[in-house]
């Protein structure tokens, strides 16, 4: 991350001339200077859409930044840690981060267990494999906004889920219940994103050497035992990736609380940090505070990723 933020926009290499070139030129630009030209649009894109905004976000979080008319020259004083103090003393921010914590505690284990189980089953059976794979992918390729419409219907007060549950239906219903709103969102995201993780596990499972299973069989291990002692450790690097990507997805949560629970309700019980950034930054016009929330969020994600790498991804190259 630091490499990105420290690279100024100017790093886009100047488009090179003809590929011929004399010897010193070749040493300067490489064997095919045309490559620089081919890659130039992409380099400019990364600089403008990723590198510069990251630096801008960090800078903004230390300024007293506000929106002004385009072109107007305004004084935006350095504010030190004022924005961070404002963010950290805001109970809504703490609640939003707590909500992501609840989300991750439900979403991550559920994703790991179910996607590994389904990938294992998919990898073992012989018939109808394509049908199963394709059906798991349908939610993944569909817009959240579209799927939210059905979930709203399914989980509404007298929706199908509650009808099936009968007397067991929660009151107040799922999405308007402050204890259940975030878990329902976590369930939604797990369901919607699962196919991608199944795919990751599937490709990892195909690389597990058969000899390991055979050796375990010879030693008298049953199928369950082989799953636990051979499969699970063998796909460890995939598990690390699943953990990492699920954490990033969780930190990016916006559409689901915005639509499923009507803007993070009830009473902020399902507000996510990104939703809060939208409310503070764009609705209320404090982009500096929103940028500070973003920086804190990214630092937290990096920390969680580091923990995951330490404890799960250790054997990875």
């Amino acid at each position: 991350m630091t490499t990105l933020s420290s690279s100024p926009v100017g790093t886009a290499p100047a488009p090179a001339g003809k590929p011929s070139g004399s010897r010193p030129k070749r040493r300067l630009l490489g064997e095919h200077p045309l490559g620089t030209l081919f890659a130039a649009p992409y380099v400019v894109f990364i600089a403008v859409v990723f590198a510069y905004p990251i630096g801008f976000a960090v800078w903004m979080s230390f300024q007293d930044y506000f929106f002004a008319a385009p072109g107007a020259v305004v004084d935006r004083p350095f504010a030190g840690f004022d924005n961070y103090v404002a963010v950290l003393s805001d109970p809504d921010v703490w609640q939003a981060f707590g909500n992501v914590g609840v989300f991750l505690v439900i979403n991550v284990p559920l994703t790991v267990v179910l996607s590994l189980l389904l990938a294992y089953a998919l990898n073992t059976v012989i018939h109808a494999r394509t049908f199963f794979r394709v059906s798991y992918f349908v939610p993944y390729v569909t817009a959240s906004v579209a799927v939210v419409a059905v979930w709203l219907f399914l989980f509404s007060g007298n929706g199908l889920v509650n009808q099936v549950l009968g007397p067991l239906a929660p009151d107040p219903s799922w999405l308007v219940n402050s204890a259940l709103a975030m878990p329902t969102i976590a369930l939604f995201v797990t369901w919607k994103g699962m196919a991608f993780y199944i795919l990751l596990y599937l490709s990892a499972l195909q690389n597990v050497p058969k000899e390991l299973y055979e050796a375990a069989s010879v030693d008298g291990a049953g199928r369950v035992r082989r799953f636990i002692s051979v499969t699970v450790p063998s796909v460890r690097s995939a598990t690390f990736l699943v953990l990492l990507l699920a954490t990033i997805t969780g930190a990016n949560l916006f559409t689901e609380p915005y639509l499923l629970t009507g803007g993070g309700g009830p009473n902020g019980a399902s507000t996510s940090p990104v939703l809060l950034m939208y409310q503070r930054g764009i609705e209320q016009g404090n982009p500096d505070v929103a940028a500070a929330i973003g920086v804190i969020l990214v630092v937290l994600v990096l920390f969680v990723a580091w923990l995951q790498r330490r404890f799960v991804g250790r054997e990875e190259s």
Partner: protein
Amino acid sequence: MTVAKEPKRTKPTDAATGPAPTTRAVTTGRHHDPSSGGRLQAVLLYLVLSFGAVAFLFPFYYMVVGSLQAEVDPSVAGAFPAPGNLSFENYVAIDERIDLFTGLMNSGIFTGGALIGTVVFGVLAGYALAILKWRGRGFVFAMALLVQVVPFQLLMIPLYVMIARDFGLADSYLGMILPFLINSTAVIIFRQFFLQLPKDLFDSARIDGASEVRVLWSIALPLVRPAIATAVILTFIGPWNEFLWPFLVTKEAELQPLAVSLANFISNIAASTANPYGAMMAGAVVLSIPAIVLFLVFQRSFVSTDLGSGVKG
């Protein structure tokens, strides 16, 4: 069995010195437990898989049924279509409020822009990263990998300030497309496909006097058509399904992609219609169909393991 028909592509190695692609195209074979105990376990696995399929597909079935109900019926019986209760009223109702055609067209322009940008600039970058040797190549590839993990939440506010305020691109297609112009995952997929092509091919073309542009256009490009299919479906679902960014930069209903106008309908307008859930689901069906159809057409390239390796880098 369909597995045999699958394009035999395997995870390419990063090193340009890897073995020739022909020797690597073998790993698609799957692990079948030869010693497995028996029918019961197979039945159990099929049960798990079928349960999964029902859980993943039922909401879509229910979406279609719900969108066709003239009278909303959330009861268990309502999950089965009743011939007397079927109509297209919900589609008409939502179309009156948010103009589905305009929404679809805007989604198409937004997605099309990202697709064109990715296929043109992404292929060029992927080719440069895989085949050509130039100063800064390693750095640019590292950037392409790093971009995958840059969270959008950090970019959201500065990008909004830059694009909507400084560049004055709010309420324009260009402003919508800009952050999606080149899909980095697609760049990595292109690079990996180019890497799998035998080096000699390029060298002999160069010796024959073909220019670098011609080598790319006439030799490399036709050979990586499967990669383009993968990249197209991957790039398509991004902008087509994207809500947050176009929601931030478009305030005019005339320019909003369908995902944004449907979201506005769900959060603001639905309550004032006769059958809010029915109308919502009618809109949801219209938004889902293009992505699902495209996925079904291209599913072979999408479900292949390249996608996983593309993200892993």
